[in-house]
């Protein structure tokens, strides 16, 4: 992105036509004349300061957003936990109609996943997220979630944070690279405030959005997350998102029940993903006029469900809290999980703006609570609490549905503030994640982005990708290796029968150089036959590699050298192998073309074929 300040800077302020405009122009002119000390010339410093400012802005926005959702809910659905049947039917459908008009006519970019839009900003649009998206997300999501659509506020908060960051970064004329990186910083701030959990937010952004731990970005992300959470706690209190009852592992046998929860949770997440991935493209393929009605229709269906199960309406945090406190029977918990999957799939697929995090946690808590309830009936001696199962269930769905295994573990720890839950969480989350990985190769976010016609980099693919290493390409050192102490004549004698032209020379210091037969002959002709190689060879040292290094390092190191040594990490004179450009290219050529990506293409083409067929 070129600097607009440089290209479009007019020489003077345009003449103002009214008194108000004149006053405004004068104020701006005065501002322009202000000369502050140039303390932020160094961009790294400004980036970190900006991270804090972004965190504060995001925290404030999330506070206002949460209050707006709550106010909307109270005004539209009433202050009781369960709305009256009439409200349950009318409010989500009418609000859905209003949301559809707002989305189609005013904020077309607020549809879809905030995570993917932040990724798109990073990887496609040079960090650009229009500020109107922030306003649009705020208004439409407050209305949709507050009116009972089965969606959550975290994803919009994440996107609002990213949007605020993008706007500030651009206004402060950050470099293109920094503007690209600033969106994830804001995303972390938004998510941290929404969850009141900074560690989980930081991990999520690293695990799902940027996929690396570079120190510069990490520092900014941590700063923004911490500042946003600080603001949230300042205004809304220290309490965590959920009040988790005390937990302790009563019996080691309980871990088997948690493993079972992992299996059930993995299955539930598969159903959820498949339903979303089935419904969304089909609703998208309907005629354009139907876009006005889809959120309303989804709202009506959710309202009908809500008459009997009001818990499925809205984000459902209060009911997650009740499930954590063992307030529902296991049969009701199963019903709630099933209908929440249906309601959320309808809401999200209809294009209603809102996030999937809260519904995922809701479904997880219900599934976990149900498994805990069943365990109580069949294995009462194990003595596990239903609250513990509900909590672990939340992590299970988070790991398997959103495919963020690390974040899921830390989220449960951070939300519960109880380290003793770590074993059940790790067991259950891992099982659920592996089931999801096995039966749904494409993660949800990647699937959604491909449905929207973009191919954003998949962090999971990056994690799962098999990295080619130097040891995959290197050859055993069969050629003659010379020692720096040998004389030129000795070297000529040893290399005389070799078919190769280039030879490695090992120095006592652990350095390596190289020499050709021709150079050796030339040195002999110059009468340096009895001189040791260390004295007569040119000083340029060879770069070296270790067997475990990624192969792309070899590609960068090899330069014009015909071959370079691969040496032991603890003994630099110990030659493990040699590698040439031909070896590297051969290794890349022989590597199987990512199975994963082939599966993805296959799945996408199947879906397209199915849609086309219809």
């Amino acid at each position, binding site marked *: 992105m070129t600097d607009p300040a440089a290209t479009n800077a007019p020489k003077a302020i345009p003449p103002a036509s009214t008194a108000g405009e004149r006053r405004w122009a004068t104020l701006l002119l005065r501002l322009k004349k202000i000369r502050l000390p140039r303390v*932020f010339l160094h961009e790294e410093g400004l980036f970190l300061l900006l991270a804090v400012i972004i965190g504060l802005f995001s925290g404030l926005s999330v506070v206002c957003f949460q209050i707006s959702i709550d*106010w909307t809910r109270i005004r539209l659905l009433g202050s009781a936990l369960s709305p009256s049947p009439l409200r349950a039917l009318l409010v989500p459908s009418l609000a859905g109609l209003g949301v559809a008009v707002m989305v189609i006519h005013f904020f077309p970019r607020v549809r879809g996943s905030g995570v993917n839009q932040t990724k798109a900003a990073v990887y496609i649009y040079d960090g650009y997220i229009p500020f109107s998206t922030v306003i649009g997300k705020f208004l439409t999501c407050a209305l949709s979630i507050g009116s009972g659509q089965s969606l959550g506020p975290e994803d919009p908060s994440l996107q609002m944070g990213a949007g605020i960051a993008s706007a500030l970064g651009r206004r402060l004329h950050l470099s293109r690279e920094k503007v690209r990186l600033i969106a994830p910083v804001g995303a972390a701030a938004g998510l941290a405030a929404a969850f009141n959990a900074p560690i989980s937010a930081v991990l999520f952004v690293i695990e799902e959005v940027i996929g690396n731990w570079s120190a510069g970005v990490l520092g900014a992300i941590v700063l923004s997350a911490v500042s946003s959470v600080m603001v949230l706690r300042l205004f809304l209190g220290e309490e965590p998102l959920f009040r988790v009852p005390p937990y302790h592992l009563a019996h080691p046998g309980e871990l088997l029940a948690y493993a079972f929860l992992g299996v059930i949770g993995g299955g539930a997440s598969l159903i959820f993903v498949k339903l979303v991935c089935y419904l969304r493209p089909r609703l998208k393929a309907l005629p354009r006029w139907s876009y006005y009605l889809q959120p309303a229709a989804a709202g009506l269906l959710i309202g009908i469900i809500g008459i009997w199960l009001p818990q499925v309406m809205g984000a459902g945090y209060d009911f997650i809290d009740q499930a954590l406190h063992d307030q529902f029977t296991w049969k009701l918990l199963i019903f709630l999980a099933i209908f929440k999957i249906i309601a959320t799939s309808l809401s999200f697929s209809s294009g209603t703006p809102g996030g999937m995090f809260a519904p995922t946690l809701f479904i997880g808590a219900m599934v976990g609570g149900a498994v805990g309830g069943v365990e109580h009936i069949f294995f009462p001696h194990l003595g596990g609490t239903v609250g513990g199962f509900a909590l672990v269930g939340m992590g299970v769905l988070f790991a398997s549905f959103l495919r963020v295994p690390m974040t899921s573990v830390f989220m449960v720890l951070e939300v519960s503030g109880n380290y003793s839950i770590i074993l059940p969480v790790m067991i259950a989350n891992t099982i659920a994640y592996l089931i999801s990985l096995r039966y749904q190769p494409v993660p949800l976010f990647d699937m959604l982005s491909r449905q929207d016609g973009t191919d954003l980099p998949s962090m999971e693919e990056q994690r799962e990708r098999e990295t080619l290493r130097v040891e995959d390409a290197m050859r055993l050192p069969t050629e003659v290796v010379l020692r720096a102490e040998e004389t030129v004549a000795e070297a000529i004698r040893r290399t005389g029968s070799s078919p190769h032209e280039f030879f490695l020379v090992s120095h006592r210091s652990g350095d390596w150089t190289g020499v050709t037969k021709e150079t050796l002959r030339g040195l002999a002709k110059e009468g340096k036959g009895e001189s040791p190689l260390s004295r007569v060879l040119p000083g340029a040292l060879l770069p070296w590699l270790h067997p475990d290094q990624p192969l792309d390092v070899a590609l960068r190191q090899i330069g014009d050298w015909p071959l370079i040594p691969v040496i032991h990490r603890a003994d630099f004179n110990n030659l493990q192998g040699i590698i040439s450009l031909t070896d590297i290219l051969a290794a890349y050529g022989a590597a199987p073309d990512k199975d994963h990506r082939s599966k993805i293409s296959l799945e996408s083409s199947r879906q397209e074929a199915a849609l086309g067929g219809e």
Partner: protein
Amino acid sequence: MLPEGDRLCPRCGQLIPAGHPECPVCTAPQGFLWRLERETLVVISLVLLALFFAITGFVVQRYHATQKALGGHWYQRGEAALNANQPQKAVDAFHTALVYSRDNSAYQMRLAEALIRANRLGEAEVYLRTLWVREPGNGTVNLELGRLGARRGEVSEAIRYYNNAVFGSWDSDPLDHRLETRIELCQFLLSKGERTQAESELIALIALERILPPDAALHAQIGSMFLQVQDYRRALQEFQIALKLKPNTPGAWAGAGEAAYEIGNYTEARRYLEKAVSQNPADLRSAQQLEIGKLILSLDPFARWISQRERIRRTVAAFNQARARVEQCAQSRSVNLQAKPATSPLQNVFAEAKKMRPKATMRSLQRDPDLIPNVMDLVFQMEQQAEQTCGIPPDPDRALLMIARTRGATER
């Protein structure tokens, strides 16, 4: 999902409406802000931030006020429902109140109480345990957990929480709460048959009671519990204090009478019981105890104030009565008392009585008064054996049994 003909700008990602060749955002003249120095922009951002802080602060203040009001409103509805004995409705209302004031301990406490009343013990326990983790020394929470344990019959759990409540902190009237909790604990222990533990709790209760202003009803209540743990002397003391404080304390005369009767102080028992029966003629238990007490006083050959002749007369009368009781009992159970050899305990004791009969006369006993204890021992054996074989005896025989018990206790 874009409107038909519209597209996204490849540079900035903004929407390019149909018919526009270029992106309206990228081609728009840049605003004045773009031309300001970076440092100035940072300062402007900070000013905006301060403004945003102020606005958010105002909004949050109003929000909290609304939340508090809504929480209070639903709490009141919960209280009303609880008072109207509609615990289910109260549970819903308190749940809603907690939505608006999540960590309000009072709301949580009332919700737990409503859940207990709705017989949803498991759910109540979760809330109480959460409160307990937050305030392990809270008397109210511990008391409710103790009650929960008591309802579930978990004796050790209930005792632990009741004790925590006794030594816990209370918002108001801590002494009264501790006293009530200890009384409740004693009642629970008595209901579970844990008499020894109940007795020690009652003794601790007396110490606590002494700090509090005198209360006749309380002394009578504690006296009743001492009666249940069969600590009759302490029971009598408590009832006496109660009667001293307030002579018409309900149940105190009867309690004092029973305590004196069980101790074997029949003269005093008669005095208390006569008063109890005159105050409450429907008190059949006291009337019966009075009757037996009177009989004991008239039948007891070991009474101190009677003459030697009277003592001998009573011994002979007791012997004849016991013998008649054995014969009556044998007849009702079709036991042949004349059978030889004697096989049943009743036959054995009757055989002994047969041997003793010549000695158990006025003349013989006057000659040898030292035989009186031997005769009376046989009387007691006959009565006990008859009771074991035939059950509850008539009042005169019960009186003899009571004399046997009192004498046994005295000898011990």
